[in-house]
């Protein structure tokens, strides 16, 4: 208690200096907490957007399709989707299955012609797996076979609005080009750049007609009842045999999550640098505290204080400042994170003209990872104690007379 009492008083010997040091630590730690929350939020949003708009929980392709998915091979398709759907009905854990037809195509508004992804969707059942119908921000969802949904940014780039005509030009299964006119009936904003900037959605029967693939589809998207997809994937694979391939949404987007991991590591490193700078602040404060009190250390030694007791006193000082800084840092990091969770950060103004690959909306919402927050708090605490120890150890070992003679 004596040692703590002395340490406590010493912390307030230079209140301003102690507060500035604690603030330096807290800024570093709150940046770490905030960064973590933001990255968690971004990841969660990306995952949700992929599941909600792009893949569902699982996707079934005809064997060999995925290897060439980038080329949208329409000769490797699922020819009889209904029979597959009927077979899969017996598997527990599947909530819904919808077919999709994806192909690369050109669209033209009469002036410009650009290459986009065309997705043929099942008007009636799309909502069972995807949230596309809810993403219509203008106009309405598809009802007739000549209607088309377009992403908000693509519509803006092509000067399209509700009722605008648009021609889709595609090469069919037999290598012949075919074109069909559509009317823009709805404009969607999903937050997924693939759909908002590079794709149009048309009824599946229109897509099948354009590609001359009859009832064929390029994929079957599955919504599962739980997030544990390993067993479900195995069950489906077993049921369908080797002619089909099943992938989870994560497997299909491995590269995106690899980028995410790298981004997270880099940003954490950046925050770590801030904490290290704060640690240098502690070193500075403790060094000043020790150097201006060497004679006092000598006095304490003369009174009978052992080296250990004096070291403990300084460690308490570092702990009080570091603990206070870590606490305030975690608190502010948490408050900032709460803001991110509730309100998010609106980046739409900044990014409206930039095409990003990451499937997120421009309002980034956070996701708090409490174990990580605890780790960051403990990390700040420990680093304060460690740098204090390294800084003051040598001085506390001085011979009493050397300390007393110090000026």
């Amino acid at each position, binding site marked *: 208690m004596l040692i703590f009492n002395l340490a406590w008083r010493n912390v307030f*010997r230079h209140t301003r200096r102690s507060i500035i040091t604690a603030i330096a630590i807290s800024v570093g730690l709150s940046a770490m907490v905030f960064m973590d929350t933001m990255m968690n939020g971004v990841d969660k949003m990306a995952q949700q957007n992929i599941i909600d708009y792009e893949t569902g929980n699982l996707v079934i392709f005809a064997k060999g399709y995925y290897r060439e998915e980038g080329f949208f091979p329409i000769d490797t398709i699922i020819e009889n989707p209904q029979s597959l759907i009927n077979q899969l009905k017996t598997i527990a854990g599947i909530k819904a299955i919808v077919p999709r037809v994806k192909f690369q195509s050109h669209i033209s508004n009469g002036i410009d012609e650009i290459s986009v992804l065309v997705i043929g969707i099942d008007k009636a059942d799309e909502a069972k797996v995807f949230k596309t119908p809810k993403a219509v921000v203008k106009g309405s969802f598809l009802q007739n076979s000549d209607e088309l949904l377009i992403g908000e940014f693509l519509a803006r780039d092509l000067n399209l609005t509700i009722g605008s005509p648009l021609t889709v030009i595609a090469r069919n299964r037999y290598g012949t080009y075919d074109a069909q006119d559509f009317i823009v009936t709805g404009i969607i904003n999903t937050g997924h750049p693939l759909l908002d900037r590079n794709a149009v959605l048309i009824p599946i029967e229109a897509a099948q007609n354009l590609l001359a693939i009859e009832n064929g589809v390029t994929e079957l998207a599955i919504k599962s009842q739980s997030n544990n997809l390993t067993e479900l994937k195995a069950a489906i694979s077993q049921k369908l045999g080797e002619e089909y391939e099943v992938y989870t949404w994560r497997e299909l987007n491995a590269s995106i999550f690899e980028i995410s991991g790298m981004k997270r590591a880099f940003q954490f490193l950046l925050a770590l640098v801030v904490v290290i700078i704060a640690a240098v602040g502690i070193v500075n404060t403790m060094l000043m505290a020790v150097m201006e009190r060497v004679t006092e250390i000598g006095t304490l*030694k003369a*009174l009978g204080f052992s080296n250990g007791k004096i070291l403990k006193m300084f460690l308490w000082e570092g702990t009080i400042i570091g603990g206070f800084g870590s606490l305030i840092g975690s608190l502010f990091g948490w408050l900032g994170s709460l803001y991110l969770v509730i309100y998010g950060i609106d980046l739409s103004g900044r990014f409206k003209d930039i095409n990003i690959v990451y499937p997120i909306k421009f309002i980034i919402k956070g996701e708090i990872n409490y174990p990580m927050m605890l780790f960051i708090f403990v990390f700040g605490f420990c680093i304060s104690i460690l740098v204090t120890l390294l800084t003051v150890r040598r001085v506390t070992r001085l011979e009493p007379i050397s300390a007393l003679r110090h000026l």
Partner: protein
Amino acid sequence: MVEVRNLHKDYKVGKVLFPALRGIDLQIEDGEFTAMVGPSGSGKTTLLNIIGCLDSPTKGEVFFDRINTNQLSSKEKARLRQEKIGFIFQTFNLIPVLTAYENVELPLLLLNLSSPERKRRILAMLEEVGLSDFINRRPNEMSGGQQQRIAIARALVKKPNIVLADEPTANLDSNTARDILALMKELNQRHKTTFLFSTHDRLVMEYATRVINLRDGKVVGDTNTNRISNKT
């Protein structure tokens, strides 16, 4: 009680050795009120520091109650200082963040005395040094004389065998110095605590029962009020 045998201390400055003590032999008996006098550089402070286990000799031995302090570890020396030695410094050396009461309490806390016992001793000691009304003052709220009284209280409160005072009156005006010396003498007589102090102050002759004269690291005179023995 304190015996010094053939004590040598050399300081090395660069490559040059400066002998501060050159073979001191001394015996300090219990209850003495002894002053060490001599010009600057005569070795007074060095001798006090070695007796107080704050410094180590180059050669020779110091026996504290028959314990050879050369053979003690730094932890054992700390314990010896904690239990048996009180220090009074020229610059008072009070802990600035603590009140007068807390400064006096510091050595008692190290002895793990109970709170009522500590309180009883501190209040009695502060009464003896005449600063009962200053218990909540911090050092910077007191005069030099008052600070030195607190330092004396801090040195004596744990009932040490010996109090070592290095130039205790050097930073005080003559009136205050006289008061401090009178107080130390009074406490020496009341508690039978041994006092050994270094000083330049001529006033000390009025109070000391024994005066040891040092010059160039040697004892050149040892004067007792009853017996005068010049070793020159």
